[in-house]
C-alpha cells in the first residue's frame, strides 16, 4: 500500500470566484458571495439570499467545452476539475491509472425541474434532453469523458459530506494500489428543488448567514465545485511541481440520531474528527486551523461546537466557516473547503468567519474574524457534516 497520498493540484469555482486566484482574492478582501438570485428562476427571488456562481450557463458552457443545454452541475464540475488537472501539471497523466470520484446531491435536477413541469401536464411532454442527465452519476461521467479518465469512475452522494467522502475514497483507492492519480471532489448547482426543500425545514436565513454567531438564523444555499488531484507518493516523486500537502487523515462516522438534525452532543462530528486525528497520528494540539462545517443553522453550529469543545479543550486552534463566504454548496462543500484548506497550508492563511458579532454563549472559543497571513499552518482539519448523520472529517498536512 502507498504510504501517503499527496495533493498535486486543485480547482474551485463558487460564488466568490471562478478559479483559485479569484477565490483567494475574495477570501482576503472579505467579499462574500451571497445576494439576490440572478440565474435561478424562483418565486423566492428577493426573499432568500443565495450564493450563485456569477456566470450564466452559456458562459459556463463556453469555459467548460460542454453544450449550454447540459446540467449546470456538470458545467461547474468540468471547470473546477479542469483547473485541478491543469494545476497538477502531470505530464504523463494518460499513461497512469487514473480515476475520477465526484460527488453531488442534485445531479441534473436543474434541468429535470424544467422537464417535470411539462411532464406533469402530459407524460408525452418535456424535452428528453432535459431528463437524460438527471442521475447523479451522469454529471460525473460527462466530466470524466471530457478529462479522458476511464480507469475508475464513481459518484458519491451523502448529502453535505459527499465530496469529503469522495476525496477520501479516492485516497484509499490510491493506498490500495488500484489507481495512481485520482481527481476527487464534488459539485452542485442551485436548484428550486433544494432551495424549496431547505426552506421547508425553516433553516434558511433571510439575510446573509452568520455561522457560529449567537443570533444566527440559518444557512444560505450556494453552488459551485471543488476538486483536488490526489497522487501516490511514487507519482509525486516524479512531478516537477511540488505537491501542496498530504492528506494525512480522514474518517467517516454516522451520528445515527435523526434524519436531518444533528445530535446535541455532536456524536457523529466528534467521532469523525477523533477518527481523522487517530488515522493521521496527530493530537488535537497539532491542528493549526479548523475549516468548520459551520452552516449557520442553530442546530449544526451548536452540535459541531460541542464536539469541538469535547475534543479540543482546553486549547483551541484557530477556526472559521468559509460558508460565510460561499454559502452552503451542499455536495460541493467538502471539495471546495478541501481546496481552501490546502491553500491555507500553502500560503499560510487563516480565513475569517464573516458576520460573527456575538459569540455563542455555550462555547469557550470564538472563530477567527480577521483574515490572517504569514501564519504557521501545518495541519488543517476540514469538517463536512450532513443529513442522514453522515459526518466526515479530513486532515491535510504540510510536507
Amino acid at each position, binding site marked *: 500500500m502507498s504510504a501517503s497520498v499527496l495533493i498535486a493540484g486543485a480547482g474551485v469555482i463558487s460564488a466568490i470566484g471562478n478559479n483559485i486566484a479569484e477565490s483567494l482574492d475574495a477570501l482576503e478582501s472579505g467579499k462574500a458571495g451571497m445576494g439576490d438570485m440572478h440565474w435561478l428562476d*424562483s*418565486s*423566492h427571488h428577493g426573499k432568500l439570499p443565495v450564493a450563485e456562481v456569477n456566470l450564466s450557463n452559456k458562459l459556463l458552457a463556453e469555459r467548460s467545452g460542454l453544450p449550454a443545454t447540459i446540467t449546470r452541475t456538470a458545467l461547474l464540475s468540468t471547470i473546477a476539475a479542469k483547473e485541478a488537472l491543469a494545476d497538477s501539471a502531470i505530464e504523463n497523466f494518460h499513461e497512469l491509472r487514473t480515476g475520477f470520484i465526484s460527488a453531488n*446531491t442534485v*445531479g441534473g435536477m436543474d434541468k*429535470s*425541474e424544467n422537464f*417535470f*413541469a411539462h*411532464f*406533469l401536464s402530459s*407524460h*408525452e411532454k418535456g424535452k*428528453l434532453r432535459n*431528463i*437524460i442527465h438527471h*442521475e*447523479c*452519476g*451522469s454529471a460525473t*461521467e460527462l466530466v470524466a469523458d471530457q478529462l479522458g479518465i*476511464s*480507469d*475508475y*469512475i*464513481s*459518484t*458519491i*452522494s*451523502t*448529502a453535505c459530506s459527499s465530496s469529503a*467522502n469522495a476525496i477520501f*475514497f479516492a485516497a*484509499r*483507492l490510491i*493506498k*490500495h494500489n488500484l489507481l495512481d492519480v485520482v481527481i476527487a471532489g464534488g459539485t452542485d448547482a442551485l436548484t*428550486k*428543488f433544494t432551495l*424549496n*426543500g431547505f*426552506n*421547508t*425545514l425553516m433553516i434558511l436565513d433571510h439575510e446573509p448567514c452568520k455561522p457560529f454567531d449567537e443570533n444566527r438564523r440559518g444557512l444560505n444555499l450556494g453552488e459551485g465545485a471543488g476538486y483536488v488531484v490526489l497522487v501516490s507518493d511514487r507519482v509525486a516523486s516524479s512531478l516537477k511541481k511540488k505537491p501542496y500537502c498530504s492528506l494525512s487523515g480522514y474518517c*467517516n*462516522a*454516522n*451520528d*445515527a*440520531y*435523526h*434524519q*436531518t438534525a444533528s445530535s446535541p452532543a455532536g456524536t*457523529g462530528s466528534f*467521532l469523525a474528527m477523533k477518527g481523522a486525528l487517530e488515522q493521521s497520528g496527530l493530537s488535537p494540539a497539532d491542528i493549526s486551523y479548523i475549516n468548520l462545517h459551520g452552516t449557520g443553522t442553530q442546530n449544526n453550529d451548536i452540535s459541531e461546537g460541542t464536539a469541538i469543545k469535547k475534543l479540543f479543550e482546553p486549547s483551541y486552534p484557530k477556526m472559521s466557516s468559509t460558508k460565510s463566504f460561499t454559502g452552503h454548496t451542499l455536495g460541493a462543500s467538502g471539495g471546495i473547503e478541501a481546496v481552501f484548506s490546502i491553500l491555507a497550508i500553502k500560503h499560510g492563511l487563516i480565513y475569517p468567519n464573516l458576520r460573527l458579532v456575538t459569540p455563542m454563549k455555550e462555547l469557550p472559543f470564538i472563530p477567527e474574524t480577521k483574515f490572517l497571513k504569514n501564519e504557521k499552518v501545518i495541519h488543517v482539519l476540514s469538517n463536512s457534516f*450532513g*443529513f*442522514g*448523520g*453522515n459526518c466526515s472529517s479530513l486532515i491535510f498536512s504540510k510536507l
Partner: protein
Amino acid sequence: MNVYIRSTANISPQKTFGESYPPDAAVEYIGNRLNCIEPDYAKLIDAKLIRRMSRIIKMGAVSAMTCLQKTGLNMPDGITTGTAYGCLEDTSVFLTRLIENEEEMLTPTAFIQSTHNTVGAQIALMIKCHHYNNTFVHRGFSFESALLDAMLLLRENHITHVLAGAVDEITDNSHAILTRLGLYKRKPVSNFSLLQSDSKGTMAGEGAAFFLLTNRSFPDNCAQLNAMHTFYKPHGIAEIQKNIISFLGEQLIDINNIDLIITGKNGDKKGDEIYKQLEHSIFTNHRTMHYKHLCGEYPTASAFALWLATSIVKEGIIPAWIENTDSNQPAAKRVLIYNHYENIYHSLFLISAC
C-alpha cells in the same frame, strides 16, 4: 485477506424473501415491468419508524436488517449502499408539489426522504450504527462501488463485518420516462420468453439486495467473494474478452475452472449481442445461465446476480425455479458473473464455495 459473504437478503420480483423462499416456481410477468414482491413491512418495522419510510427505504432497510438477523450480529462495522436512481417516489412527490403549488406550502418529509443517502442513513438510525456509512450513486456501477468500498474497508481496519447492498425502484413516473427513452419492449412480452425475444428493449426491474461481508471464516459463511472487477466503455468484444481472461488470471485460474457462468442477458437485441459473442468464444461449452428474466433490468441488477450466485453456492444446487427446469441441477462450486449495463458499465464477480 479473504472476503466472505456471511449472509444475504433480497427483495425482488420473485419470491426470494422470507418464508416464501425458495419458491416452487418463478413468477411470470407480462408487459414490460417487473415489480417487487414485498413482505408485510408492518410486521418487520416499528410503527413509529415506518410512517416516515417510503417504499424504497423499507425495501433497503428490511433487506439489510434481515442480513444481520440471519447471523445474530447486532452491529456491523460499516454500511455501504449503492443506488442509481435514489429515492424516486419522494423526489417525484416533492417536485410535483413544488410545481403545482408554485413553491408554496411545501412539506419537508418528502424532501428529506428524497436524498440518495436516506436508505443507508435509515439503516444506521435503526441500529444506532455510528460507523462508516457511504452511498454510491453511479448508474450501472452503483452496487459495484459500494461492494468495492466494503471490500477495501475489510482489508484496512481492525473490523470484521460490513453491510453492503444496493436498491433501486421503479415508479410510474420513472417508468414512463425510461419508456420514452426507449429502454423497454414496445409490445408486452412475458419475462419467461424475454431472453429469447429478438427485438429492441428489455423489461424494467427493481430490487433491494444486501450482503453481510466479513474477513473471517465463520461456520455459517455462505460463500467466498474472491474478486470483483469493473471496466467502463470497452472498445469492442476483444477488450471485453481480455478483461474477463485477465480477471480470472489474476485469481490464478482460467475459464475451465469455472462451474457456472451467470450473465446479464436482458432480451435487448443489441446489448445481448455481446453475450452471444462470448457464448461463441470464451464461454463456449460452459454451463451458462441468466437472471434478468427473474428481476428485470435496472442499474443495480448485478446485486440480484450476486445474491443468486451466493444462494447456489451455499445450497449446493441450482434450483429448478430459476430456469423453469423440471428438477434441481447439480452444484456449482465456482461461479463467474459477467454483467453489462447499456454496454457502458461492465462488471465481473467471482464467487466460490467456502
